[in-house]
């Protein structure tokens, strides 16, 4: 092992320790990040439809809808294995505030957690006030370990399920879960491309810009209040703008002329790394978001772009074509200690450093000239191709728990957005309409 690799492993260990200290439940967190971590078998006995639980659309009752969303969230958590209770010999006869008699059999049948609840329009309140109760039964302690009671308008039914799913993940791992996270992306409207934000599962899309031209490659601020992105002012210059999601207010961060692309805020939000060609060709710069001072990070005749911060904020992965075709490089956040990371193939680009620090995802061109997702460890020792087949895959972005990637692909014809596990399993399409959806960026967790 080289000296550099030793330093890197040390860095990973210290990041891991820091993360454990931050999380509220260090003991269970350790369990969940062990390589041999076994998913916790969890059954959902049902979310019972109570009075007035017809959804506004009338077809699916609200309890049933919440149950469906909850099941999908639990499955995607990768913390739990969603089990079908009847096939485990558990026949639920009654769902109330107390655990059903059948739950006692669950432990011996290998089920660790049973979740159930009820949802309906709250009696004596406005007719749109939805109430949901959820209960969690732990077979190990043979008791109800806790529950939640949510109220809100029927329009937040999905959010109730997402929030309950995240509470489950938090209870068993100490991590916040990803069910309430968002994905920012670009969607085509006519000949324009505008910024949108949707829930992590593809629902609830919201349009953020309406400029009538091109807005590209959004990235989140670490506090999830802002997006930074490239905008074509007057169709001729590429500036880097920031938009506040709650208000739609916009600021121009970089307007230097030339190419100004691929902005990325550091994990502490104190620096913006970006690529600009205003001094000739695309180089990387670093803007201090407090003092507004700009520091140039790269100096060569080739294109340098797509900076992605390590979780510690001490290093950057980026794309450079200084050796011919684009390849992934690493450097310290001050521009020193540059070294090439990828050597396989003649085209590797769009790096995305995992929030856990252990992988860098990127777009690799295969020998068949297909553009697919690959991952490589930051020491370059191990690399894997995650996707195969037709279609151009682009713009990988990690979930904040480091267990999933979101990316765009033309595998089904038009560019749409897909989710995949970090090990290449469970490919799932999450956008279905429109002529073009691309450049997904997964929000931090809350």
């Amino acid at each position, binding site marked *: 092992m080289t000296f550099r690799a030793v330093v890197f492993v040390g860095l990973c260990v210290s990041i891991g320790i820091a993360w454990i200290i931050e999380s509220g439940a260090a003991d269970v967190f350790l369990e969940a990040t062990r390589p041999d971590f076994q998913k916790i078998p969890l059954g959902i006995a049902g979310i019972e439809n109570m009075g007035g639980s017809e959804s506004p659309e009338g077809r699916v009752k609200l309890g049933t809808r919440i149950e469906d969303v909850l099941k999908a969230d639990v499955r995607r958590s990768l913390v739990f294995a969603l089990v079908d209770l009847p096939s485990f010999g558990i026949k639920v006869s009654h769902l109330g505030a107390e655990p059903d008699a059948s739950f006692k059999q669950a432990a011996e049948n290998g089920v660790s957690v049973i979740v159930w609840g009820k949802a309906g329009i709250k009696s004596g309140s406005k007719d749109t006030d939805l109430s949901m109760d959820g209960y969690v039964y732990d077979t190990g302690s043979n008791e109800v370990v806790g529950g939640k009671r949510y*109220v809100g308008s029927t329009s937040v039914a999905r959010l109730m399920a997402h929030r309950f799913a995240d509470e489950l993940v938090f209870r068993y791992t100490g991590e916040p879960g990803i069910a309430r996270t968002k994905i920012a992306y670009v969607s085509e409207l006519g000949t324009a491309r505008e910024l949108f934000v949707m829930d992590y599962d593809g629902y609830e899309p919201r349009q953020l810009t309406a400029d009538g031209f091109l807005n590209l490659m959004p990235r989140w*601020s670490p506090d999830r209040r802002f997006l930074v992105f490239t905008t074509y002012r*007057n169709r001729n*210059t590429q500036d880097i703008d*920031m938009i506040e*999601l709650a208000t739609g207010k916009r600021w121009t961060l970089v307007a230097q002329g030339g190419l100004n692309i691929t902005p990325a805020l550091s994990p502490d939000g104190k620096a913006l790394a970006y690529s600009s060609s205003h001094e000739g060709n695309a180089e990387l710069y670093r803007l201090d978001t407090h003092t507004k001072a700009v520091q140039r990070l790269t100096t060569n005749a080739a294109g340098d772009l797509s900076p992605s911060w390590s979780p510690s904020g001490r290093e950057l992965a980026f794309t450079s*074509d200084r050796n011919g075709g684009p390849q992934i490089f690493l450097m310290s956040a001050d521009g020193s200690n540059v070294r090439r990371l990828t050597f396989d193939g003649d085209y590797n680009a769009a790096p995305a450093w995992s929030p856990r620090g252990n992988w860098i995802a990127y*777009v690799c061109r295969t020998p068949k000239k297909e*553009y697919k997702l690959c991952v490589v460890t930051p020491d370059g020792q191990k690399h894997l191709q995650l996707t195969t087949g037709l279609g151009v895959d682009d713009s990988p972005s990690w979930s904040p728990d480091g267990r999933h990637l979101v990316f765009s692909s033309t595998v089904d014809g038009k*560019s749409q957005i897909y989710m995949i596990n970090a090990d290449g399993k469970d490919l799932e399409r999450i956008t279905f309409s429109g002529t073009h959806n691309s450049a997904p960026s997964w929000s931090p967790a809350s």
Partner: protein
Amino acid sequence: MKMSPASYLPLILGVIVLGIPACSKKAVRSGGDTQALQGEMAKGGTAKEGTGSSFPDTSFSGRDDSNSLRGLDRNPSEERLSGNGSGAGNQGGTGHSNAVIAKADSGAAARQLAEIRAEQVASVSAGLRDVFFTYDSFSITDEGRHALSGDAEWARSNPYAQLKIEGHCDERGTSAYNLVLGEKRAKAVRNYLVELGVTPTHLSVVSYGKERPFCTEHTESCYSQNRRGHLVVKTGK
């Protein structure tokens, strides 16, 4: 259908009515510059200084607590959720604050289309020819040199015209790297025009990468149309 299209359907329909460019109608997708002067004025000094100076400090120390989980409870108290909004979770309450939903600003889209069309008309009447590139390449071919000699002749005989060179790429490759490749193509075209005697200050470049394709099929004949240096006569003031 997951993504409710109701909010932007009118805009899409409007654009369809105005004419979505087919592969052959390339000029509808070309750019323009009529707003450049106003834009420079609106930006004030920021363009010269390089960066905007008034944007908020984005530094972040710790998670926002307002949206954080409260944990399971044996006797749970009522938790009110509001607005499944954008993810900006610092507005109080346990829900998400509502994101601003941009109004489908048909005014902006219509203005952009009108300006693009004006440039299209000017460029067609000038008889400008585009330059096509091979896969991965930004070298100008012999055919491209031939096209550019005619373009240079037009530029020299129209010394008050401002030409914009758009660099375009096919859909293969990443969005980000194709923006760099598109700029290399546009600059290769500009440099050759300068070699042919066109005044450099009459030329500007912009890269659209793979974001404004002339043709959207996944075929080589379509890809080859999209690997292009597209010349446009600026019609703005």
